[in-house]
């Protein structure tokens, strides 16, 4: 049975059932929009693979690890960096960052937390013996000192303006050396212990993870006693469970389910604009994609407004360039990318395009709307005179092609802005030697390298402005949409989602509405 057919049929079944479960049944279930619940139940699309925060970067894992553990710095839903286990930090000279570490914080087992823990935890990510999967996150660090319990000094090899941002994302979760050495790697993976707002209680694989609120949390006890994270892989039962009131929050709500959730009396949709973009990445080494005019035509031929309206039901915005809205150095004065099929034909003519085939290798149901968007875009390209076609590849095949750099033409990429800055997005992926190194431009490379190691934000702003202009001429990425990451919530839940998938349920952003 192919995965594709199964998904499509499930969608069919869901529609059929939705029609059956029409308005009267749902209207009759209007519930109070307050609750006395002391348990928060969340359902996500897949289970946790491991609790060791340094050996996984998958969204399903970090939704939990960012709550069991704390980072030194924290990126909140407003997109800004806030204090975490560090209360303040400042740059001394060009390469020395000094962090003031929070006093009086306790690990879940009652041990006192101090700066030496933070030092060991960060060093562990790049210690070859620890075999982590986050060993490249802190590659700019030269050495770390913890002269006393509340001071942490990090020396970088070159100036690194983004170090505090790096500490807020994966790899930056602080783990306890003492506990780790006591229980060993296996013990730690199965029974994690941190300083975060929730404590580990039990885990039944692919069923449920039970956590309890940390009453001693430095940021205040969260507004629940227990939290249950369930793994419900199929979308239809995940949505059904929310509508029926079994779950308080569901993740990964597809755009076409939003109306159902909003129409139901007791539930609503909450979304955050994705900290990143959905782009078509281009292998600019092959013909005819080595010609900027062809790529300009490809961009001009795409009616992005139509895609946002029809496929995203309005849950997204049209990008203006390669920097996501909400990131540092996003230029609000740039207009959204233009749709002009006539101009596209002109540029193809000017490029001397002779009908060479352009293949988009798309996954199916890996990214939201990947295949439907690929099909729509192929049709738009064909209308403009491009000989385009879509080929569906399985996610594993895509991962191998990514590693081997063997994409035939163009493919989907959904770069996350890990640092809230173009350095953590376009430079991370498109830089020389990066995973999407299929295009080189001397000036662009120089600017990216200089901006990465500059602590002068004025210079960086100028550099990213120029880099954006170069991208919009050469299109190593053809940005398509910046969608919302939507969640389904009970109306008795008051919660603000974070744009970067770090699913935070802390006192400042989560509470149950009480009567």
């Amino acid at each position, binding site marked *: 049975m192919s995965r594709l057919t199964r998904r499509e049929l499930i969608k069919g*079944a869901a529609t059929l059932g939705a029609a059956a479960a029409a308005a009267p049944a749902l209207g009759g279930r209007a519930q109070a929009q307050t609750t006395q619940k002391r348990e928060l139940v969340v359902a996500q699309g897949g289970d946790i*693979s491991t609790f060791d925060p340094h050996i996984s970067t998958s969204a399903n894992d970090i939704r939990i690890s960012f709550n069991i553990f704390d980072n030194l710095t924290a990126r909140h839903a407003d997109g800004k960096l806030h204090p975490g286990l560090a209360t303040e930090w400042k740059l001394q000279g060009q390469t020395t960052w000094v962090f003031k570490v929070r006093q009086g914080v306790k690990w879940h087992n009652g041990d006192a937390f101090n700066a030496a823990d933070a030092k060991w935890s960060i060093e562990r990510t790049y210690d070859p013996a620890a075999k982590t999967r986050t060993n490249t996150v802190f590659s700019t660090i030269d050495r770390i000192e913890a002269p006393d319990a509340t001071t942490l000094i990090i020396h970088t090899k070159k100036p690194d303006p983004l170090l505090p941002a790096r500490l807020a994302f994966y790899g930056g979760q602080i783990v306890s050396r003492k506990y780790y050495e006591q229980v060993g790697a296996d013990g730690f993976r199965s029974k994690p212990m941190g300083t975060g707002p929730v404590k580990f209680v039990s885990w*039944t*694989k692919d069923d449920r993870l039970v956590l309890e609120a940390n009453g001693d949390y430095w940021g205040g006890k969260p507004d629940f006693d227990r939290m249950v994270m369930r793994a419900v892989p199929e979308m239809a039962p995940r949505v*059904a469970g929310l509508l029926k009131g079994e779950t308080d929050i569901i993740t990964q709500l597809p755009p076409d389910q939003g109306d159902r959730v909003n129409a139901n009396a007791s539930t609503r949709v909450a979304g955050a604009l994705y900290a990143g973009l959905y782009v078509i990445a281009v292998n600019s080494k092959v013909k005819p994609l080595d010609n900027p005019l062809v790529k300009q035509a490809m961009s001009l031929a795409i009616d992005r407004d139509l895609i946002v309206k029809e496929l995203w039901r309005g849950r997204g915005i049209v990008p203006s360039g390669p920097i996501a809205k909400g990131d540092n150095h996003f230029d609000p004065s740039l207009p959204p990318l233009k749709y002009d099929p006539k101009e596209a034909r002109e540029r193809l003519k000017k490029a001397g395009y002779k009908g060479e085939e352009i293949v988009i290798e798309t996954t199916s149901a890996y990214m939201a709307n990947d295949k439907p968007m690929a099909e729509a875009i192929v049709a738009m390209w064909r209308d403009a005179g491009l000989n385009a076609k879509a080929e569906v590849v399985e996610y594993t095949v895509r991962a191998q092609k990514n590693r081997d750099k063997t994409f035939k033409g163009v493919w989907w990429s959904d770069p996350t802005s890990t640092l809230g800055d173009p350095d953590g997005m376009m430079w991370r*992926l498109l830089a020389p030697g990066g995973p999407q190194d299929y295009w080189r431009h001397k000036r662009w490379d120089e600017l990216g390298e200089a901006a990465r190691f500059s602590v002068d934000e004025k210079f960086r702003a100028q550099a990213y402005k120029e880099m954006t202009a170069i991208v919009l001429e050469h299109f190593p990425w053809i940005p398509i949409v910046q969608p919302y990451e939507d969640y389904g919530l009970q109306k008795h839940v008051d919660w603000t989602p974070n744009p970067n998938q770090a699913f935070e349920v802390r006192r400042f952003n989560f509470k149950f509405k009480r009567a």
Partner: protein
Amino acid sequence: MHGRGPAAPASSMRSLVTFLGTRLLRALVALWLVSTVVFVVMRLSGDPVPLLLPPDAPRSEYARVARELGLDRPLPVQYAVFIGNVLRGDFGRSLHFREPAMQVVVGYLPATLELGLTAFVLAVLVAVPVGLLSAVKRNSLLDQAAMGVALVGQSAPTFFLGILFILLLSLQAGWLPTSGRGGWEHLVLPALTLGAFTMASIARLTRSSVLEVLRQDYVRTARAKGLSEILVVAKHTFRNAAVPILTITGLQFGTLLGGAVVTETVFAWPGIGRLAIQSIYSRDYPVVQAVVFLSALLFIVLNFFIDVVYGLLDPRIRAR
């Protein structure tokens, strides 16, 4: 009939030993073949390493992780290591969970057994009486209704049925939970979904094999003797119709294991079917190998028991 006479005990003993010996040998060959096929197919289907690393990992990282997992060695060497370990009962460590693979699989087994056995018992308890009644009351309204439902049950895809049940019985009617494992109420919908195909097949087969037997001379004789209809059906018909029913029932248990893959995914049921599908997607070779090995073993053991039960039901089979 053979084997009756002075030499009988020794020869039947010998034939029993031969029977068991052949069976065991066949089982081992089957297990070896299944393991080998899975080993090869999994490795042809894709590399797990890119899935374990963030997309921006440098090439040296891929090489390091492949080495760490022993996946950089030539395939024949990997195969030799794999077979050697399996002989010692070691299926390797899960790439995803980083725990011994067989331990992971065994942890998922109780959920599947609970669901599978419930579905199976439910299917047999409903299907056999319904099939029997349908045959006895042939062409009645009951027969037509039952066989109509059975046809739907046999042809509706499992996932479609599952989602339909969730939307109608759980979301709209509000009778049962939508998904997950818990008390008996969590078991009803997945067991119905998983058992639907089996139930339908057994009901249809029961009906046709009972009809077949009802046409036999000895049934006519029994009726002519003036036995009550109940006795005719219970004593003379059903026992003779039981062998084909048992065959399909045994085979259906295998189908249940297969159906668990879809049912467990739809209902977020933490069993080995769902584990299998996830491990295939993440190319977690050791877990896939352990799941398939264990399922094959279960199937073989089950078939063995069915053979033994045949012998009890039908002396002609015992003698062969």
